[in-house]
């Protein structure tokens, strides 16, 4: 269970921050309609890297939405991240085709080799692991995304070396 956020942790953002100004532009594009919340959060996450409390408060204020409503939406959808992302990301597809073709063995190899599991980053927080419910490369299963690079027909034996090669994070 996540600890509660204190009010003192939240900084008030204004349009003086160019990133907030960019988000504001998107809000205006939808004529400040509260219906645009999800689309605005997409842009905010792009611009800020993740959805901090400051950003959520800002978006809620500008769209005239209650803070708990914004928080509820941001935590409902898996693509939104309320925490900064690790420098390097490994995404193992666990869609059915990849599952049938050995995604679990790859996860096991990463766990055994680097202690890397979903939700617990390795290498001092530099490397994180996520599961994806199908990234749509089913014909190339099992598929692994290392940073933005896709590895088709990934293999449990060589995955560790590949992670080092792409991210530069040694074992």
């Amino acid at each position: 269970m996540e600890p509660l956020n204190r009010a003192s942790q939240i900084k008030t953002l204004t349009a003086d921050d160019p990133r907030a100004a960019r988000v504001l532009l998107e809000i205006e594009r939808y004529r400040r309609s509260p219906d645009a919340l999800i689309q605005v959060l997409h842009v905010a996450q792009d611009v800020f890297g993740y959805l901090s409390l400051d950003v959520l408060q800002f978006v809620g204020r500008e769209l005239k939405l209650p803070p708990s409503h914004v928080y509820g939406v941001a935590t409902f959808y898996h693509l939104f991240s309320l925490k900064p992302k690790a420098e390097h990301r490994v995404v193992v597809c666990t869609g059915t085709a990849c599952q049938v073709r050995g995604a679990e063995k790859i996860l096991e190899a990463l766990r055994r080799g680097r202690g890397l599991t979903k939700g617990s980053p390795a290498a001092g927080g530099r490397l994180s692991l996520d599961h994806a419910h199908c990234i749509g490369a089913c014909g190339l299963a099992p598929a692994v995304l290392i940073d933005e690079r896709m590895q088709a027909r990934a293999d449990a034996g060589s995955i560790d070396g590949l992670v080092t090669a792409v991210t530069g994070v040694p074992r």
Partner: protein
Amino acid sequence: MAALEIFVNDRKVACESGATVLQACRAAGVNLPTLCHFKGLSEVGACRLCLVELEGSPRLAAACTLHVAPNQRIRTDTERLRRYRRMTVELLFSERNHVCSVCSANGDCELQELGYAVGMDHVRFPFLNPICNLDASKSEFAIDHNRCVLCTRCVRVCAEVEGAHNWDVQGRGFLSRIVSDLNQPWAESTTCTTCGKCIDVCPVGALWPKHKAQGQFEKRPEFVSELIAKRGRGRP
């Protein structure tokens, strides 16, 4: 509103068009268990306790969100429905950490009453024992997520009647939790008006006034319903 007739367990029941099956049943004295339903608040059909069988439909329907239609035939008390209601109550007891003996709502708890009503003598499913917060930061009230059944009455009363929208639901699925503002301590909420309506509508002991001990506290749900009836609902 035009009057029409439906059949509840083969008995003819007169009701007004636009009414829900739940309203029609209750007006006719047919008892249906509910948990998420609260008179005066919007209906969500979430707890699935008021499920009924509808003739001609392969699916079960929640009576609280099903509207009456002429000559509709409803069954409220089949063996299957009784079994499913019991399972729903069992699942609710298994979901969080419900310990009646130390709960402020002991004796005045809708979940407890449902347990008796459906004849739940024990829970067959493994207890899931999730780790949940208790937020006692506010001087008047506290919220204990261990006892929450996610009926969202508090969310609705706060948004629809008080118009404050302090509460919402965060996360999803089994990890859903009621949340105040940006997941902040209740005492730091910028939206809560300390009106206490959420306390009165909570069916269990998840929301309670801090100065009441185990079994001491009596809720006043009728008070909120009457208030709504007198002044009409706010934002839907």
